[in-house]
Structures are given as C-alpha cells and as structure tokens.
C-alpha cells in the first residue's frame, strides 16, 4: 500500500474539468475497474474512504480490549494461546487498515489522534463488557460472524488498497468465528452452569450484534454515495437479514434460545422475521454512553501515553546508529 510519500506532483486540476473527471471516474467504477492511490478521485470519495477505513481500523484496535481482558483467565493453555493469536490478529487488522487509509493522504498518527481525542468513531459493539468466558465465545461467533458478513463484500470494494486489506482480513476472521463457536459448543456440551453461561452470553450479544450492521436502510445517511461508488455493495438491512438467517440455525444446533420472542420463520419469504431493534440504545452507545465507552478510550490513551518513551527511544537509537554509520563512512 503506497503512501502520501508517493503523491503525484504536477497534474494540476482545471476546475472546469471537474465534472468531466467525475463522470469518467464513475464510468471506471461502473466498469468494475479498481481505483488506486495515485488515481484521480472525487474529494468526497476520498473523504468517505478515510472515514470508513479509519473507523474500521479503530474498531480493530479497540476490539482487542474486551477479549484481551480474558487472556490471563482463559481456562487452558491452548485457549490462552488461541486467544492471544486472535487478539494479535486484531492488532494486525488495525495495522493493515491504517496503512490502507494512509494511501489516501492522511498519516496514521493523525488518525490515532482522532481516536484518542474522541473525534473519530469506532464500532459501538466494543463498548459492551465481557463478564464471563462465554462472552469470549459469543464475540467470536456473533461479533466476528457479523463482521465477516459486512466485510466479505468489501473485498470487492472499488478502492484497491482497502479491497486487498479486506481479503487478508476475511481469511483470518474465519478462524476467529470458528474458535468462538468452538468455545460455545464446549460450554453447551458441559454442565448446566456452563450452558447457562453460554445462554447468558448469547442474551447479551445478540442485539448488539444485529446493531453492528448499522441503522435501518431508511435512516442510513452514507449509503447512497457508497453504493454508487461501489464501496458498499449491500444495504444494512440486507446484510442483517442474512446474518439472522445464518445464525439462528447455529443457535439451534447449540441448543440455545435467541432472545427474541418475535423471531419466526417466514415460509413464504423464506427468511426469518425478527423483532424491532432498540435504536435508542444504539444511538446512546454510539454517542459515548455505553457501558464501557470511557473505559475503552482511557485504556487506549494510557497505552499510547505509556508507550511514548519507547517510540521516542527507538527513534533516537535509530538516529544515533545512522549518524555513527555516516561518520564511519566519512
């Protein structure tokens, strides 16, 4: 993924050409050509991508916190190793995405600053707590499952660096979802207490997972442009429906009950009907008033501040090595 360091020089834009350029850009997107970092793109396309990719990156990084919470308490050495690998993957996903965003002309430090100052958003799902080990299972199964549903179409997104990052991410997410389901299977095959623990986690995560697909289509503000530009290929409601249809049979297999009394199979439409989502809760958590919003941002700020001396020392060391090498050569 190239960077702002490779920005094109010259190529001065004549404002009169702007609408013609935009028309040609749209024609390219319609042909399914990929847009690459140095290609001309409408300013709003660039801004939309920076917002979406950086929010996605922030979500990966903040997403390490609720699960990292269980690394020291995982029930076996194998589960601990698996969880460490998963959390490390999330950090990796954040890094792939920050570097994809950087190809659009922002620096990673600027983006991180936006996260730490509270200016940038991240997925509100990570503002929920993980009180039991079963929550780690439910996150893998439901949260990563919903993420995959959202992310697979992004592998075909019109912006090349984002699409390529998503291919890599989706490959790794599949492990995340399966390890989560595996935790749920073990708990559901265990004692009555273990099964109750699994049910409790499903009760906590079901509705927040459905909210991950974003507001209903009728209320979604960013969808139209994103669909025209082929950043987004399916609507929020389409993906949410698909997630419900995929997940309900899995819950049934586990012998768990989805916490929605209105959930029913519609034979005519060949899909599940489900109850109304509490969008007030979604708005509340998004606005910073979820159960763990403050805690999550504080943890990120603390890590950033406490790591500052390491970053500075590494840089100073590298500079010293360079100047020594230079003076030896002279």
């Amino acid at each position, binding site marked *: 993924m*190239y960077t702002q360091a490779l920005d094109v020089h010259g190529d001065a834009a004549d404002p009169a050409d702007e609408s013609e350029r935009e028309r040609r850009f749209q024609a390219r997107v319609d042909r399914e050509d990929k847009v690459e970092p140095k*290609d001309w793109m409408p300013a709003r396309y660039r801004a939309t991508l920076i917002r979406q990719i950086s929010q996605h990156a922030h979500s990966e990084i903040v997403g390490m916190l609720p699960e990292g919470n269980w690394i020291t308490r995982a029930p076996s050495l194998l589960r601990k190793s698996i969880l460490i690998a998963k959390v490390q993957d999330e950090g990796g996903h954040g890094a792939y995405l920050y570097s994809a965003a*950087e190809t659009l002309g922002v620096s990673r430090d600027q983006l991180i600053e936006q996260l730490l100052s509270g200016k940038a958003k991240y997925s509100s799902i990570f503002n929920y707590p993980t009180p039991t080990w079963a929550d780690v299972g439910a996150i893998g199964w439901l949260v990563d499952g919903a993420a995959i549903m959202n992310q697979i179409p992004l592998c075909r997104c019109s912006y090349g660096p984002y699409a390529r990052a998503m291919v890599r991410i989706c490959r790794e997410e599949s492990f995340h979802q399966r390890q989560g389901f595996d935790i749920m299977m073990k708990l559901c095959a265990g004692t009555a207490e273990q099964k109750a623990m699994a049910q409790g986690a499903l009760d906590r995560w079901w509705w927040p997972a459905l909210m991950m697909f974003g507001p209903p289509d009728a209320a979604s503000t960013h969808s139209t442009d994103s669909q025209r530009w082929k950043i987004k290929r399916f609507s929020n409601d389409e993906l949410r429906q698909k997630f419900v249809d995929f997940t309900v049979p899995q819950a049934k297999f586990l012998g768990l009950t989805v916490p929605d009394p209105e959930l029913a199979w519609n034979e005519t439409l060949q899909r599940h009907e489900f109850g109304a989502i509490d969008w007030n809760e979604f708005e509340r958590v998004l606005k910073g008033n979820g159960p763990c919003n403050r805690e999550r941002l504080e943890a990120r700020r603390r890590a950033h501040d406490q790591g500052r001396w390491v970053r500075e020392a590494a840089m100073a060391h590298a500079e010293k090595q360079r100047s020594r090498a230079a003076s030896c050569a002279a």
Partner: protein
Amino acid sequence: MSAASNAGDAQGEREWPLFEIFIRPRGGLDHKHVGSLHACDPRMAIEHARDLYTRREEGVSIWAVPSASITASNPAEADALFEPARDKIYRHPTFYDIPPEVKTL
C-alpha cells in the same frame, strides 16, 4: 529530539518512517508487494513485517523498502506512457497466421 520533519501527534511526536513490504511466498517465486508499515529503522521494519504479514507462514523472505525511495509512474500520464506498445500487435505470436499443416511452430 529535533522538532523537524514528519507529521506528528498533538505532543509533537514524530512519526516513524514508512516502509513498503515485499514477501517471497516460497522459493522460486518473486517477492510481491503486500502492504506497508511504520518502523524506526530497516531492521525493525523486517521484524514488524514478520509479525504483521507472515503470521501464517505466508513467506520465506522479506524485503523492506523506505516508501520515500520508490519512484512511481504518474497515472495521469499512463495513456502516453503505455501508448507506444498499443499498436505493435506484431509483437505477439498470435499476429501471424500459420497454415494448420505446419507443425511445432
């Protein structure tokens, strides 16, 4: 620490330089661009690339190149740059009609 150079955060901290990472998936194949990362020196770039891009044995060799060292062609000039090859279809073997009875050509 000197105040010069790159964009930094609110405290004026400087950003680590960016490297482009290329991975050889296995012996016999070319190194392929996989993405970029920040590191304070080339050795750290290799170590971070190992952690970031080869967690599942995706490679046997890594190249790290400072992004600022790459010279790229300008996409706005791509037409002019690649146009000279466009009308030289005689460079392709399929340009030539060979009678079917002529074999091994």
